[in-house]
């Protein structure tokens, strides 16, 4: 293509550039040349576009005119098909790009038709009824998608070029379009006004991307809520790949009983969401009930959970490598009684492991239990201590079943073991859920069936959400989804919530359908309080809504520590849940304690429950001393010889500071006096 474009085209390549040269032409960022003054860049662009649409092989230029027609190329073979042509008016540059990996999307081509008799010009999509009648099927070789491309009905436009296009949302807009700059056309003259549209969307909802297409009725939501859902949809649990049982991913979640949403969008079909959905249709009641669903939390039905609602399998893969060195190879083996340095003295713990150090599939394994047995040769080889335990253990806090074991070799010939643990995650208080409208919340409480409100026909909600979540967020689409879902469930029909469609459902249409099906038209029902048996005074809006279980689960976050590992340098608690660390009391938190006047609390947090230590300090000269062995040695200060060493309680970090200062030649003397006074003298 480069060769094609650089030959036979009206570009000036010989320096110096002539006067009036304009319109730099770039191909993939590389400067090709410049247009001579008499050539209009717009025309160049038009010609190139026609080429792209025509499928004209540029080599035909070298062929005679009469042979040109037979060289029309099918869309599949058209080398210009993915060329993007854009003209930047401000910079006066024509940018041609052929990069791989550009995002491009198909649009309908719009052309102008001139009606000489009526002196009217119209914008019309190249795609006409006859084309649609011709199409036999998407994959049909002759009359499918490619046929439409050959017929110039459709072309792929990338991001750069779309900036220069004028895209109509739908055909209706084309009909209402007016040309700018109308003037009386002289007979025989081809008028050339500026068209209002160059392309048209195949369907208005194709302006939305993959994630946004998951939202039902997004045109009825406040826009930030749609944005939030686009982010949360990525955290929803479902089936992440059909090959999940063969994959050894470090973390993976699987929803036990995924359901296709009751209320869907057209685009969902094309992204196959309905085939691998990430959520379930949940009967949701919107009511203030017990107060456990305040502040965006959600009441869930224990009965539904018991029957498998939102049950998830969480999978974690542990891996280990037995490196194969010449003399002392590491081996996978169940550590025996003769293995020294066993991390856990109880030999029976290793019973889940088989002889080869790998666990039995299906075995139940708890936290901190050995999972992969590995022995490494000891540093010092003696008769009875040859091997040392270097087994891999299950993470603290996780317990499950051994799901799959894979033994393989890596590139260096070492044996690699991977063990997958499967943990059942039943929804519990604290786990996060969300609808498709940015309405996230955690489970506040699991109500037993007895406590749940119920309708007279026995139906009780799986979830009760709080009505306060709705007014300020204006997420009406959720209510519409619920109403439409109710109709869909009763009429056994899928409901279409595609935005911008001419056959869009309105609340009126949904309501009247619901009414015809025998329910209150607004989706409200009379529910009876499960705890008291008295009917609730207010009617409750109840219906199915597609909810997602998000990957934030309380089991992954809950953490506590009283004492535990400390850092080597500062002797302060380590950081991180995995390392059993402490929660940081930061500067601003300290300020709050100070503001309360709670000094003892501060001291407790920052000293006694952190790095408190006793340090000996010479009473006379204030220099840090050493801890004498009181039996055998008389205490003596190194610096001044005084025999009185006083023990003070200070943070270890302070002792560290003192020692670091001493390392710099600064004497941090801690002057102690009677209780209540004290000072630090820096010398």
């Amino acid at each position, binding site marked *: 293509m480069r060769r094609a474009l650089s030959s036979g085209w009206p570009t000036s390549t010989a320096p110096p550039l002539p006067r009036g040269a304009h319109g730099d032409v770039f191909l993939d960022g590389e400067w090709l040349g410049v247009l001579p003054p008499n050539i209009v860049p717009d025309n160049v662009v038009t010609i190139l576009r026609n080429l792209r649409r025509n499928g004209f092989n540029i080599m035909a230029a070298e062929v005679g005119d009469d042979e040109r027609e037979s060289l029309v190329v099918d869309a599949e073979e058209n080398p210009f098909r993915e060329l993007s042509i854009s003209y930047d008016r401000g910079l006066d540059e024509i940018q041609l790009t052929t990069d791989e990996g550009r995002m491009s999307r198909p649009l309908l081509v719009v052309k102008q038709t001139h009606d000489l008799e009526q002196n009217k010009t119209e914008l019309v999509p190249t795609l006409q009824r006859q084309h649609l009648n011709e199409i036999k099927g998407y994959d049909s070789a002759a009359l499918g998608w490619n046929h439409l491309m050959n017929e110039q009905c459709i072309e792929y436009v990338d991001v750069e070029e779309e900036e220069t296009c004028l895209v109509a949302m739908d055909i209706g807009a084309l009909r209402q379009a007016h040309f700018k700059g109308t003037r009386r056309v002289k007979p025989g003259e081809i008028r050339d006004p500026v068209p209002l549209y160059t392309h048209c969307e195949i369907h208005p909802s194709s302006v939305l991307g993959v994630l946004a297409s998951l939202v039902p009725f997004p045109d009825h939501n406040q826009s930030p809520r749609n944005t939030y859902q686009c982010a949360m949809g990525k955290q929803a649990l479902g089936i992440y790949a059909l090959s999940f049982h063969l994959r050894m991913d470090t973390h993976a979640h699987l929803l036990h009983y995924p359901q296709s949403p009751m209320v869907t969008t057209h685009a969902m079909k094309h992204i196959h969401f309905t085939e691998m959905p990430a959520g379930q249709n949940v009967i949701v009641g919107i009511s203030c009930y017990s107060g456990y669903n305040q502040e965006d939390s959600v009441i869930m039905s224990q009965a539904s959970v018991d029957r498998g609602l939102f049950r998830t399998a969480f999978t974690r893969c542990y891996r280990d490598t037995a490196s194969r060195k010449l003399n002392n190879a590491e081996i996978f083996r169940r550590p025996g009684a003769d293995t020294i340095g066993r991390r856990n003295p109880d030999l029976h713990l290793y019973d889940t492991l088989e002889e080869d150090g790998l666990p039995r599939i299906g075995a139940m394994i708890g936290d901190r239990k050995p999972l992969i047995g590995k022995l490494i040769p000891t540093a010092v080889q003696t008769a009875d201590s040859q091997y040392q335990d270097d087994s891999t253990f299950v993470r603290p806090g996780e317990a499950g079943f051994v799901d799959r074991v894979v033994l393989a070799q890596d590139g260096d010939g070492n044996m690699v073991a991977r063990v997958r643990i499967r943990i059942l995650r039943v929804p519990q208080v604290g786990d996060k859920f969300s609808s498709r409208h940015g309405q996230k919340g955690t489970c506040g409480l699991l109500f037993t069936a007895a406590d749940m409100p119920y309708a007279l026909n026995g139906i009780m909600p799986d979830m009760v959400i709080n009505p306060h979540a709705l007014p300020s967020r204006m997420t009406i689409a959720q209510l519409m989804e619920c109403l439409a879902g109710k109709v869909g469930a009763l009429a056994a029909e899928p409901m279409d919530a595609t935005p911008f469609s001419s056959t869009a459902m309105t609340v009126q249409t949904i309501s009247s359908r619901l009414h015809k099906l025998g329910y209150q038209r607004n989706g409200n029902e009379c529910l009876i309080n499960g705890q008291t048996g008295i009917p609730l005074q207010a009617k409750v809006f109840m219906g199915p809504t597609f909810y997602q279980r998000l990957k934030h689960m309380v089991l992954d976050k809950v953490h506590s520590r009283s004492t535990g590992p400390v850092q080597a340098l500062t002797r302060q608690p380590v950081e991180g849940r995995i390392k059993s660390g402490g929660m940081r009391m930061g500067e601003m938190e300290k300020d709050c304690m100070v*503001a309360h006047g709670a000094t003892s609390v501060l001291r407790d947090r920052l000293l006694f429950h952190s790095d408190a230590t006793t340090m000996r300090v010479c009473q006379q000269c204030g220099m840090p001393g050493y801890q004498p062995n009181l039996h055998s040695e008389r205490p003596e200060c190194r610096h001044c010889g005084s025999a009185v060493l006083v023990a003070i309680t200070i943070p270890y970090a302070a002792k560290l500071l003192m020692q670091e200062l001493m390392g710099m030649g600064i004497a941090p003397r801690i002057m102690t006096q009677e209780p209540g006074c004290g000072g630090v003298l820096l010398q």
Partner: protein
Amino acid sequence: MCPVNFPALLAHIRAVYPSTNIEQDPEDPTRQIVVPLPIVSGKGLKEAMEASLNTEFFGHGPSDSEKLRLTEFVKGLSARVDKEWDQWGLDTEAITCVPTATSIRYTYAGAEEGMPEWEREVPNDVAPALLEVVTQQQMRELCKTCRHKYGLARLEAGSVCGALAAQSIGEPATQMTLKTFHFAGVASMNVTLGVPRLKEIINAVERISTPVMSVQLLGAGIEAARFVKGRLERTLLGEVCTYIREVFDPSLARVELQLDMKTLASLQLDLTSEDVKRAILKHPKINLKPDRISCGRGGEIFIGSPNETREQLFFELQRVKLALPSVVVRGLPSVSRAVINHKTSGEGYELLVEGMGFLEIMGTSGVDAYTTITNNILEISRVLGIEAARQAIINEVSKTMAAHGMSVDLRHFLMLADLMTNTGNVTGITRFGMSKTRDSVLQLASFERTLDHLFAAAYAGTLDNISGVSESIIMGVPIPVGTGTFGLMKQPRVLKDGSLRVPSTKGRTTTLLSDGGVTLDSVWTEDPKGMDLAQVRALALSGGKRAQRGKRGKGKWKGKGKGDKNGKKGKN
């Protein structure tokens, strides 16, 4: 600002303390009737309040302004009561009255001090239906509760009001959107507001981004305003010249400039060539002697080279030519702009002046120096003094927060302003300002520039008394604020044999003593009752041998005698 919401409190009191009583029916002992309690008149209310305020209870506590608020409220209440009584024809001179269906029983205060109250009964046709009903008990309780609520709102001693002020100002600051608001109607003046302005004030920045003065005028009318504006607003030579050019001639070499007399006239600047000549001579960059510059008749000015000789003639003239446009011919050099503005409150005009030079502007004729203000704190400090600067800080900060709709209690600003000005100079809350006012090395080192402070302290042999928050935390010492304001002293228990036992305390204060020695749980053999604190302390620290372990006692440490395996040697 005051903690008490009087109308709400009165409603509450009325609900809690009834204005009626239930008594036995004097005619029929088996029945009970509802008897109204005496209703207090306006006069009675005022007297009751006076009496309450003068009690010991009210004495130290509410400030005068708080008492004033209560007084105002009661005055309003009595006025309403009196009005109603007048409408019903009741005697407002009385203290209380009990209106029944048949009669009204009045109570009056004694004619003079100390004389008893007396009563009077007046027959009545219709029982008055009064709305504003307050009984004596209710009035008493009202005053009492007021005082009590005030006490609840009082800050406890040892409260860390600095941290409280910082949080109370800082938190709403995070809610402030960085919007610029119009300056009182003048579209062109955009004063810095919001978070950036707060930063400027707190950091006591010398050059603020929009220094604006609200200049009040002595004369009324637009002419006076224009006059002062002309005097203040700086005009540069470059703005009033038609041309400035070098002229080279066989006979002379000089810079010529032509003043635009028409513009000067229309701008009402009464500038003559002489004025300009003087301004040029004054300009520091152009070192001209008076004989080098002369004026023409039509506003021309001729300037020769500053040098006596012909040395560097061309370059000298060039230099002069380049410097000339920036010569200030009129107004104050520090004032870039002066805008006439209609006063927001009341009639007349004021000038909004953008720039510095507060003192000069105050001294300009036509300016009312008593009411002119500026928003530049440091200038106010220089010109009007530190107290004025303190007030200016308060004003500016509260203006900034109020402009964004935040209402923060004045006290926090008072704290901030006091902190910034108590040394006598305006010190910002930055590492520079803090260095000036703080002594603690560790505190400064923990804020910014750690090593600098440590090295400087080491060089000087500085002693850090661990008295502040930061250094106490570093050294693990109880912080002397809030709960740490005080220590704890314990009452020793007197045993049967006359000796005293002090329960063991872990930590700082142990003043157990015997004939020497410090133990965790020991028995006093000396009676400290007769000693004063110093003697007790001395005794406690005398060190020496340990006392024998008491027979009774829950010894925390096992073993006896001198330091053994478990014992600690010294304690501090």
